């Protein structure tokens, strides 16, 4: 059995939406108690996004593609609206967690720093099931 990293903490599920403001209105009507973050514009990833905190530390991320985001728009147009699940690293260095996950069959394809997380190091990987996983060093 591979040595999986321990201590990852669930943070959010990222869902792609067509219109961010419309979706915010829908979810606020459905979940009026949820805390809404500010809207982040992440130019490097060509997305606009917002977090709805459903319970303490449990978020839904709504993501709208900006112009030129061809890959994500294609996924959305194919009906893939549930996009990724995200975990914080539980205080562990991101590279250590990535290294352990790679030994367990995960495949890294992007490392970046996100304005939505105070420019903390982040990464996208695919799990062996081809589920997209985001890691946030925190």
């Amino acid at each position: 059995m591979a040595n999986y990293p321990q201590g990852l903490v669930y943070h959010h599920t990222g869902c792609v939406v067509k219109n961010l403001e419309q979706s915010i209105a829908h979810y606020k009507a459905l979940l009026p108690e949820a805390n809404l973050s500010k809207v982040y514009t992440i130019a490097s990833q060509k997305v606009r996004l917002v977090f709805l905190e459903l319970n303490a530390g449990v978020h839904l991320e709504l993501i709208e593609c900006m112009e030129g985001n061809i890959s994500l728009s294609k996924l959305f147009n194919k009906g893939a609206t549930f996009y990724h699940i995200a975990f914080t690293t539980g205080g562990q260095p991101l590279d250590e967690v990535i290294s352990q996950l790679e030994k367990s069959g995960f495949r890294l394809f992007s490392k970046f720093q996100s304005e939505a997380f105070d420019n903390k190091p982040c990464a996208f990987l695919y799990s062996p099931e081809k589920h997209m996983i985001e890691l946030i060093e925190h």
Partner: protein
Amino acid sequence: MMNTLEKLNEIFIEELENPAIKLTEATTANDIEEWDSLAHIQLVFTIEKAFNIRFTNQEITSFKSVGELVKSINNKVNNG
């Protein structure tokens, strides 16, 4: 019989949904608008399946051109 570059060209056209793509060994991600990091990993999965090979994680993030991709594919196919 198609060579590796021709087969890759077909894969790129299908995956990136762009029939105008004409790969050369010098082609890089900067030359193809649709070839971003998300598209790259989808391409990798399709290429692995088509050639019955598996890239290392280091290879996935280090290919700098189609030529490097072709060379890696040919090495893996020829050396099993």
